[in-house]
């Protein structure tokens, strides 16, 4: 780094420049958040605002016969808008143009928006929604992957498949034929709700110049911009989107804000008044996007020593009613489906299918948590079939430098799979804990066997766990403990040619008071973008992080640095900002004809520059590294610039009487290249780990006739702090030469490994290998009853093709 060369000349001690990267500086927006100064969109007071509501379909599939406003209701002052009021195209522009902003005639899923209402009084508009009568001609809906594949009804083209992907490397059938053992497995995962703390919300108003200003809770201002330009047939410069303080997104505010933003804008357009739409939790859970459910089959050939020879993988994801982001979710899922393991023969066939459920969408991990859940459970099944320690099986197959992925990508640098794995195993004392749990479980089982009830725990007090070997037993409970691990990887940035197509631009200029100011569309949604960006720029300029201003993502002010998704913000956009900062430093030092000493000096020079030369602004756009090649048609090449790697080890205690699983201890390691802000990075890893824990154990969207049944916080169960165990985070730093200061992606990786690690730990504790998440107590008790076995009962020996599926 340049900073090292610019030490002050005549001082006795060497003054260190205000190092920022790698230090956990105070969050720039932290004070506003903890003191309540930060305002969510619902907290904003707008004079003359109307409150908007959405009337949604109550059926999953059919036709609207008639929409009637109850004449008994007083409709004065109520603004009513439907699809006919849309000035441009009736669609939410994203990948394909198939999703309407408001349903005109056909209903493709429950909760599909049909009519919009607004009134000054939120109670009146709430009452008005109950005075709308919609008559339908219902049709039989398709609600499951199986029914969609069986073409129970035609929903999309002639096969109900939104997207087909085939990735092939080597010769899978020959590889399977030449394996010592072929092991089959089938795995399923359900929907998951993002459950950000702040619900979706937007405020829209017409601007004096005939355009639209839309403010709200969102991840991707330019997505909303693109969608509104189309829906309102406006020139791009007449649509302005501004992010307000956003309480979490996790992908749930990637594409959906285009919908709610369009609705608020339509009501504002029609009424000429500002309109606010803020969902309550019930509506947010019922109507907005979820993680794609998936059904994944693996057929894997191995040698006796555990070396992977061939892997045939089949993935089907439930896309919901419209295409939305399903093709790219599927793509990321497919690319990660074989896990971070070398294997010469791989075929991955992936399909996203249409159903009459609300469209599934972006959620932290974006397809990869589903497929890596499957492959990691499968690795444990393989280990059991071979009588190998699950750690040892992974150790033998994990990616090393120079290995080749299923798309043919050569892993040229920063391959931390083994480091993540070994660090986690060491920290967890894997072998020792594993042996101990097995011994204690055996002892407990033996003690519980006698027919008499009395005296089982003679000499021991209630709730006591004896020190050596007797294991847990409390108040009559039958408890078992186990340990499990999973290894995962996660590509940083958009998949394939995505980053090239995005062509992100970020900028840095001088504010009028002579500070560096960051201009990007990348949003702070709780993950730390603002602080991390400021650190990257500060480090490069030799100033403290809080000297750097970060402009609000506002399409009227900032360039399009792309969406805040895909673990790309630090690595891709942060990299552009670092380049901007380097250019700015060079320019100002050239102007001053000397090095910049500190923040005060920077400001002095900057002000002088502004006065003498005028504004100073640097923009940098994404440039594809020359070594990266991707072929979209054949799905070959460098799917990502680089991967991050993570390992999760969990210890659990299962109550055999209730099927409840308690996570006792979690270790999460992550090779993220470089932690720009170690506390924020660790926070991301902890948060993702708990979210993964919820995915694996608790979070289940329950459906009734195509509608979410448990759309309340009471019944959609996410982990509380009581459900989370202590989490030990270890950050591994194998730098990536193209990332700023070596950084790779961190946001999504922690979501990948916890769920399969928990399944493995439960299997270790109880012998029941549950192939479907969440492993609710209901599912686990059933599995224990049915004697779900951990051994290779599904494996078929030798070279048989398509061995029998049990």
């Amino acid at each position, binding site marked *: 780094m340049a900073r090292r060369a610019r030490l002050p000349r005549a001082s006795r001690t060497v003054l260190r420049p205000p190092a920022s990267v790698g230090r956990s500086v105070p969050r720039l927006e932290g004070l506003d958040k903890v003191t309540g100064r930060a305002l969510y969109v619902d907290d904003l007071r707008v004079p003359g605002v109307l409150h908007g509501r959405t009337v949604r379909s109550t059926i999953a599939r059919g036709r609207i016969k008639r929409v009637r406003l109850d004449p008994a209701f007083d409709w004065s002052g109520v603004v009513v808008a439907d699809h006919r009021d849309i000035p441009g195209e009736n669609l939410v522009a994203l990948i394909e143009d198939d999703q309407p902003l408001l349903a005109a005639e056909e209903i493709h899923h429950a909760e599909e928006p049909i009519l919009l209402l607004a009134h000054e009084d939120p*109670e009146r508009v*709430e*009452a008005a929604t109950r005075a709308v009568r919609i008559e339908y001609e219902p049709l039989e809906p398709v609600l499951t992957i199986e029914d969609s594949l069986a073409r129970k009804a035609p929903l999309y083209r002639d096969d109900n498949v939104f997207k087909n992907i085939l990735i092939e490397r080597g010769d899978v059938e020959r590889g399977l034929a030449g394996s010592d053992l072929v092991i089959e497995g089938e795995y399923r995962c359900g929907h998951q709700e993002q459950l950000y703390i702040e619900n979706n919300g937007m405020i829209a108003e017409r601007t004096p110049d005939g355009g639209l200003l839309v403010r709200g809770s969102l991840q991707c201002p330019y997505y909303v911009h693109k969608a509104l330009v189309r829906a309102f047939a406006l020139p791009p410069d007449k649509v302005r989107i501004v992010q307000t303080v956003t309480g979490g997104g996790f992908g749930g505010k990637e594409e959906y804000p285009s919908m709610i933003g369009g609705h608020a804008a339509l009501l504002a357009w029609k009424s000429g008044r500002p309109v606010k739409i803020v969902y*309550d939790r*019930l509506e947010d859970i019922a109507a907005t996007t979820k993680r794609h459910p998936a059904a994944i089959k693996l057929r894997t050939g191995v040698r006796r020593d555990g070396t992977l020879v061939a892997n045939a993988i089949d993935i089907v994801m439930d896309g919901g009613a419209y295409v939305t982001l399903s093709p790219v979710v599927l793509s990321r899922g497919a690319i990660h489906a074989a896990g971070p393991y070398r294997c010469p023969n791989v075929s991955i066939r992936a399909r996203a299918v249409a159903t009459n459920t609300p469209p599934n969408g972006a959620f932290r991990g974006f397809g990869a948590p589903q497929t890596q859940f499957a492959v990691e459970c499968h690795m444990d099944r393989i280990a059991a079939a071979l009588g190998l320690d699950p750690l040892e099986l992974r150790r033998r197959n994990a990616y090393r430098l120079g290995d080749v992925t299923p798309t043919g990508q050569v892993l040229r640098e920063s391959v931390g799979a083994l480091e993540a794995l070994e660090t986690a195993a060491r920290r967890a004392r894997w072998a020792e804990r594993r042996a101990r749990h097995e011994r204690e479980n055996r002892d407990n089982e033996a003690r519980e066997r006698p*027919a*008499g*009830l*009395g*005296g*089982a*725990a*003679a*000499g*021991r*007090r*209630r709730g006591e766990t004896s020190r050596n070997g007797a294991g847990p037993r409390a*108040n*009559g*409970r*039958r408890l078992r403990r186990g340990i499990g691990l999973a290894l995962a990887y996660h590509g940083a940035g958009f998949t394939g040619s995505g980053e090239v197509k995005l062509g992100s631009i970020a900028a840095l200029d001088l504010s009028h008071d002579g500070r560096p100011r960051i201009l990007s569309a990348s949003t702070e949604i709780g993950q730390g973008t603002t602080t991390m960006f400021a650190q990257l720029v500060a480090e490069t300029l030799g100033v403290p992080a809080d000297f750097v201003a970060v402009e609000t993502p506002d399409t009227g002010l900032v360039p399009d640095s792309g969406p805040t998704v895909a673990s790309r913000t630090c690595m891709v956009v942060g990299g552009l900002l670092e380049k901007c900062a380097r250019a700015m430093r060079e320019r100002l030092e050239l102007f001053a004809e000397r090095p910049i000493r500190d923040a005060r000096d920077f400001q002095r020079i900057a002000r002088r520059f502004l006065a003498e030369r005028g504004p100073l602004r640097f923009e940098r756009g994404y440039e594809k590294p020359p070594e990266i090649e991707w072929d979209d048609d054949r799905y070959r090449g460098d799917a990502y610039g680089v991967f991050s790697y993570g390992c999760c080890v969990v210890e659990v205690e299962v109550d*055999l*009487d*209730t*099927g*409840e699983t*308690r996570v006792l201890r979690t270790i999460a390691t992550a090779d993220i290249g470089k932690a720009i802000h170690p506390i924020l990075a660790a926070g991301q890893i902890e948060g993702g780990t708990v979210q993964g824990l919820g995915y694996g154990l*608790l979070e289940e969207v*329950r459906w009734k006739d195509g509608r979410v*049944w*448990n759309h*309340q916080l*009471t*019944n959609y*169960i996410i*982990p*509380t*702090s*009581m*459900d989370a165990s202590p989490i030990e985070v270890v950050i591994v730093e194998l730098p990536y030469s193209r990332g700023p200061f070596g950084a790779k992606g961190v946001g999504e990786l922690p979501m990948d490994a916890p769920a399969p690690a928990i399944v493995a730990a439960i299997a270790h504790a109880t012998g029941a290998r549950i192939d479907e998440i969440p492993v609710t*107590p*209901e599912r686990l*008790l*059933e599995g224990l*009853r049915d004697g779900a076995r951990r051994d290779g009962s599904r494996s078929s020996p030798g070279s048989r093709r398509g061995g029998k599926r049990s």
Partner: protein
Amino acid sequence: MRSALSTLEVVRPRSLDHALEALGRSVSGERLVPLAGGTDLFVYLNAGTPPGTRYLDLWGLRELRGIRVRDGGVRLGALTTFREIREHPVLGRRFPSLVAAAAEVGAWQIQNRATLAGNIANASPAGDSLPVLMAHDAKVDVRSARGAREVAFERLYRGYRELTVDADELITAVTLPFPPARSFPFFRKVGTRRAQSISKVVFSGLLALDRERRIAHVRLAYGSVAPVTLRARRAERALRGEPLAASVAARARAALAEDIAPIDDIRSSRDYRLAVAGNLLEQFLRAAAESRARR
């Protein structure tokens, strides 16, 4: 908030008499809904399904507060919060399962507001404290402007969310007799997670052995396995007079299946509830046997 708050009316009585008078008067028109901590009500208000538009806010009535220890037991005022139950030393010693139940209601914030009588009057079959009250033969004091009476807790519920209390009556206190000497109390809530959860099965047991080590006194009370919190009388009969043995436990478990009628619902399944209710019964008996073995 889906309810129109501006349309709601709240009456704040100065005294219990005043409250009973207001409640009695309201019965001829739109009845006042008694409101204690409000922790259940606010869920309904938010969802737009409030139980009424007129409320009688009891929170300020000192007469309904306080825990009093007497010769034969304790008397808990209707507005006793779960936080107060958790922290009461005598309850901790003599009614540990009530304290355990109080500690599992919602979370701290809820426990600070939620009241015992509120839990009773809300009449959810999943109410966490209710099986404990039943296992301890609790009695409920109810009062109206017409007079006062005492109702055995186990006869308080007529059907799903339906009380035998009249429209003009208020619950004023709950009385718990001290359990028999050397009895073994037990409580277990199986919720949807470790805190902030609603019961899928909630169970409380109380058991005492005679000199021959036979079960002399037994109460088995369950929530979330039927339209009301109930006593598993057939299972109790299978245990009474028997020793703590595995074969006895098996017979009681079989009898239990006749006592309860769980359903599939938003939180769990019939099969799960049946299995867990039986497992908890066995767990209770194992724990009792362990506790004996330690003596």
